[in-house]
């Protein structure tokens, strides 16, 4: 139903402290989004999905370490991600995520052990 949206333009004064708390899924529905510009707005997390219809993507302070896996825009004309949190060292990133998962699993195991 948000497929009508073609342009999202978020540009506010610098020290306005605008913040968006979202789950990262909302862009998935915008199948016709062509322009996405984000300046001076903080997002609590990055998008889980970016529409492939995008032609202009400008996101200052892109919050997550990588672009979504299924993002394959064919007509992208402008891509700007200044001041981002992208990681170049992918393997380390992956290993940290892996360790986190292991630790969580361990934790749950130990808890099981204690209570039952």
């Amino acid at each position, binding site marked *: 139903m948000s497929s*009508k949206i073609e342009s999202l*333009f978020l540009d506010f*004064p610098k*020290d306005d402290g605008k913040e968006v708390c*979202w789950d990262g899924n909302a862009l998935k529905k915008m199948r016709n989004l062509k322009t996405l510009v984000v300046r001076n707005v903080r997002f609590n997390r990055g998008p889980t999905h970016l529409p492939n219809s995008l032609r202009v993507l400008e996101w200052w302070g892109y919050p997550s370490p990588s672009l979504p896996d299924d993002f394959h825009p064919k007509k992208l004309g*402008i891509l700007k991600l200044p001041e981002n949190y992208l990681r170049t060292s992918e393997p380390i*990133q992956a290993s940290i995520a892996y360790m986190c998962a292991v*630790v969580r699993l361990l*934790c749950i195991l130990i808890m099981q052990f204690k209570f039952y």
Partner: protein
Amino acid sequence: MSRDGYEHEFIETIVEDVYKQVTHVVPLHTADHAVGIESRVHEVNSLLDLGSDDVVQLGICGMGGIGKTTIARAVYDSISDQFEGLCFLNNVRGASHKSGPMHLQETMLYETCGLKIKLGCVSQGIGIIKQRLSKKKVLLVLDDVDKLMHLQVIAGASDWFGPGSRIIITTRDKHLLKAHAVNIIYEVHELSEGESLDLLCWSAFKTNKVDPRYADILKRELAFSSGLPLALKVLGCYLFGKSINESESALDWWYERIPHNHILTALKISFDSLDEEEKDIFLDIACFFNGRKLEDVEDILGAHYGGSMKDIINTLIEKSLIKIDNGLVTLHYLIEDMGKEIVRQESPHEPSERSRLWRFDDVVHVLEENSVRNQLIYADFIFYLYYLLCFLSSVDSTNLQQFFSLFFLLYNILICLNMHVEFQAFIIVL
């Protein structure tokens, strides 16, 4: 200047100094064909009482589109050679919205006394303004002010400026002037019928002579525009290159829809004459790009629509809907409002049904809709907290296994609190 410096450097400084003095006198660009401006400038000048040594604050007020800025510019041009420091602060409302009141002070200090400075706070700026300008005869124009605070930080009191200084404030809000104790107010009135006709003809046919075949249409357009120069100009440009029948039927259609005179009607007529692509681009500019660099706008729009935007932007300029000012794309606020209103009307209550989103509230509404994250996190958090409490009540400090369990629980709570990945790694190392 040091004595043993190079001669060419010395000459360069002289040239720069002279250049700065000379450019002060270069007039600002006023409207292409300003009708009725001379008499108005004359009236304002007589109100300014240029002979006296007092500091005079003058307010120019009137509704949007009536030509306040044009008059202020013309006045500025006509008297600027009589002052030591000059500053024309364009579009205070828009500028302060983008970069704050300190930036206004910085611009003003730079323009009046060439002082390049980065201010820490507003009161510091006030101090410097007082110190630098209290002996100087300055001409200061504050264009389109909408907040009392801006007046207070830029021109708080008459004793900030040297004797003979003149401060001109243009605003739509008369109360603002009264609140700031500006007693001399020039109210801009609509153009008279003759003047209106003159401007309309000029915008439509680029000449002063009225083509008698068009007389009827012109008369009706005059009624629509109710003497507002902005509306006259836009309507005139709309007529440009149109046949009589075409314009006649468009006016008929509009007259039925909206019988009373309204400036928005006049602007909408012009908007409706655009083709689809031009409409789209105009709406984009109105919603997003007022006051942006032309190159950036062209880049983004070019990528969005896939193609060169030059022609379409030129069409919009010809129709007086947008202007290019110092390399920036500018729209009159009435035209901007009209564009935004058109987009808003696509779906007045549900922002996710509109084609363009620019207001923060609307975007948040769309992005955070159905956002389950917060509830989830809290449920998780409470769950772990509960386990922790269970642990603490039965903890036996000699039991190493229990100690580790406790540690992992704490760690999980941290995860729930959405700690940064690095921090998590840090905890693991611990």
